[in-house]
């Protein structure tokens, strides 16, 4: 029997029982647009798979227990020390299990890559406007995945129960404890009594290996099904419209590329794990609440949060026999809450400002949405400033600064720099639009100088291709919303303040350098 023959009989068997052939036929030819930035989400997906594989390996030896044991393994500096079984088994994985350290390092590197890829993917989706109708739901799922990723990563590096991770858990406990009214109760429930107790490693283990991965699987499945069903967005260009999708068919080209890319991501992660040490827990020692190591740092995706907590002013309210720790609540819960809620709601906020309720499948070039791009740059600047403060002790020692200088610099910077970033980015976008306009009108500078008969030198400009001219002018330039204060009957409309705010924002949002029209080009030809 030939290969085709055998494949045919398997396909026949399945199809007679499921009728899958019709669906498969259609979907194997599904078209995926190609662009390097569309790979960012794929990196996140693949690192998730790497996390599942390497994590499963680690569970075979990891003992999620805070039972006290005496270390008797091969790592001499810790011999005879009292420690939790969790820490001892992590040492065992690192030193006794062959390939165990490699797997630990693959797992940790994959987690860092996972979070980086999620953030990069989020930025791509944000700056190109891919979150617009009909993809708002998928945007929210994405924000959910980002949030879960932060929690999952934090719980993961807390599991080894070393001095560094225990300190992180201590801080998490203090945040829970700071919640008004119920804080100390929640902390006692979470830790099974006083901190640290003996309950939290087994508990966060269950959450880390079962609950959250389950949630991840469900959300990622929904995320991908939506992408599949709604079809991928594409960048604008000749031949690409809101009504079509231009790219390569799933079978075979896209399958080979995506499948190959999985192995590349895995290979790069394994390479990092082979050559770059990460989280060497044996250097930190077992956790005990009375000790700490200098330069305590969370993983990067928690760094901004830590930076916020560090820069918070020392504010506490003591009233009516109760304490409210604003220095913990504001940076630890309130600001992140506002950030993530704002992020989740952004598609709806933007469509409220623009009044645009249509479907969008063509992406924006970031410069053609100056306000959105500026807002993104502003948020990034905010996070960057807080991230810098999260590493203020490390930066201070490396750059010969004092912690106080960095702390005060970021305390002011966190208010001053983001608005500056907004204004600068918006101006930059408008300048780039102007440059596009110049390019379409006058062509490309060739660098060739021409001497005219009367002695004047001019640079020769070469017209750009019709494809490029179309690309630079195909975007929409919608006028601002018109929201008159009075309606058709001369009666004042309800919600005056809201309307005013909306039309103000709409005007700011519609600020553009007018793109070149076909008429402009014709006019130029006549010269």
């Amino acid at each position: 029997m030939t290969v085709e023959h055998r494949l045919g009989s398997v396909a026949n068997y399945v199809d007679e029982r499921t009728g899958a052939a019709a669906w498969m036929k259609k979907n194997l030819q599904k078209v995926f647009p190609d662009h390097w930035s569309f790979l960012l989400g794929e990196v996140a997906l693949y690192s998730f798979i790497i996390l599942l594989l390497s994590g499963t390996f680690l569970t075979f030896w990891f003992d999620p227990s805070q039972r006290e044991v005496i270390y008797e393994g091969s790592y001499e500096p810790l011999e005879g020390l009292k420690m939790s079984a969790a820490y001892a088994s992590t040492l065992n994985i690192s030193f006794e299990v062959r390939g165990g350290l490699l797997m630990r390092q693959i797992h940790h590197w994959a987690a860092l890559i996972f979070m980086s890829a999620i953030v990069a993917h989020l930025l791509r989706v944000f700056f190109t406007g891919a979150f617009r109708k009909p993809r708002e739901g998928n945007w929210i799922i994405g924000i959910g995945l980002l949030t879960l990723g932060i929690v999952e990563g934090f719980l993961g590096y807390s599991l080894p129960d070393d001095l560094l991770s225990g300190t992180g858990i201590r801080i998490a406990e203090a945040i829970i404890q700071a919640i008004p009214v119920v804080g100390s109760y929640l902390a006692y429930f979470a830790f099974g009594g006083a901190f640290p107790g003996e309950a939290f490693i087994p508990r966060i283990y269950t959450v880390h290996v079962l609950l959250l991965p389950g949630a991840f699987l469900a959300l990622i499945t929904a995320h991908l099904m939506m992408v599949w069903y709604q079809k991928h967005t594409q960048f604008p260009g000749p031949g690409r419209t809101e009504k079509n999708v231009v790219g390569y068919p799933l079978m075979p080209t896209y399958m080979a590329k995506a499948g190959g890319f999985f192995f590349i991501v895995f290979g790069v992660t394994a390479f990092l794990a082979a050559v770059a040490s990460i989280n060497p827990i044996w250097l930190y020692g077992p956790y005990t609440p009375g000790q700490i190591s200098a330069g305590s740092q969370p993983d990067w995706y928690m760094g901004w949060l830590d930076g916020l907590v560090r820069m918070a002013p020392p504010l506490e309210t003591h009233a009516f026999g109760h304490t409210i720790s604003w220095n913990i609540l504001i940076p630890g819960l309130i600001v992140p809450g506002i950030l993530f809620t704002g992020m989740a709601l952004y598609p709806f906020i933007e469509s409220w400002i623009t009044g645009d309720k249509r479907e969008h499948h063509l992406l924006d070039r970031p410069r053609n949405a100056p306000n959105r791009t500026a807002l993104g740059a502003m948020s990034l600047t905010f996070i960057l400033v807080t991230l810098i403060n999260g590493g203020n002790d490390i930066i201070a020692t490396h750059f010969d600064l004092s912690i106080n200088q960095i702390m005060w610099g970021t305390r002011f910077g966190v208010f001053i720099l983001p608005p500056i970033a907004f204004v600068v980015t918006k101006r930059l976008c408008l300048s780039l639009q102007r440059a596009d306009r110049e390019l379409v009108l006058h062509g490309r500078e060739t660098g060739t100088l021409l001497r005219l008969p009367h002695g004047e030198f001019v640079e020769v400009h070469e017209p750009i291709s019709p494809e490029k001219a179309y690309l630079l002018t195909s975007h929409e330039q919608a006028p601002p919303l018109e929201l008159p204060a009075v309606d058709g009957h001369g009666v004042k409309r309800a919600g005056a303040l809201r309307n005013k705010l909306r039309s103000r924002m709409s005007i700011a949002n519609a600020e553009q350098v007018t793109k070149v029209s076909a008429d402009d080009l014709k006019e130029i030809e006549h010269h």
Partner: protein
Amino acid sequence: MSNEIEAIKDPGLPAHVHRKADTDPVAAKRAERQVAILFAISALGTILLIVSYLFIPDDVFIFIPVMGDQNAHQLGLGLGMAISLFFIGMGAIHWAKTLMPDTEVVAQRHEFRSPDKDRKEFVEAVKSGVDASGLGRRSLIKRSLGAALGLSALSPLLLLRDLGPLPGNELEKTTWKSGTYLVTDPGNRRIKSSDLEVGSVAQVLPEIADPEHRKLSDIAKDAVLLIRLRPQEFNLEPDRLAMTHEGIIAFSKICSHMGCAVALYEQQTKHLLCPCHQSTFDVTRAAKVIFGPSARPLPQLDITVDSEGYLFARKPFSEPVGPSFWERDSQ
């Protein structure tokens, strides 16, 4: 759309440019060989992994420039795995890029909105379903169902109650009592004031009957830092000065911000710094916060010596140690 100005026309998809391997059989054959070589490199990686696993002992270190001494076993495993995976990917992608079809295909999108007829029929189906169930008319069923569902949600909440005990006033208490001796950590030996030189720091814990089984949750509240200064260096209120002994002052080591161990003492400035969030406390002024996010000084422990010169706590802490909580001021 909004204005009458005519936009620049879409010239349509650019013409497809064929790759060399599409037209030249020699180039195609070469591409095929390249793909096979990439896959072969991957196989070599797997062999490296197997060899490292079986034959390189795990205590051999080799020097690699930039990276320093590396464990040969780990490095062989990791590089073998990296090569074997990476080159499968490279091969597959090279294959796709050189030999698989690269003609762009255009597919049409369809509006997601269902036709009006379907939408109308859907609404009717829901309506008739609701009507048939009587949910609209039979309000007794609706209300009792709502109440039952709401109540049943209580059961998981109730069953989670045993996650932990109620805090009671445990957060406010430590092991320190009037007369508790200070012992070294580690070591569990009583200490004399003479054990501590001027300018030095020591971590101490309260003396307990069974120091072998000291609980971490006790250390999390009991850890105390002793610092010895010259008595004239203090700038304390008389009642606070009375809590010191011959220049030895004792503070809770648990940060009043988020509970990290306040372990960094700077001898020159006499400042205590918490490495977590950089709250800085001035030892000479009863651990007053001079920088950072903490809103309260570290609680001070009242210490003195017995007739033999051993340090003990005259009184327990007068306020709860560690991070703030809602009920903190209620005592």
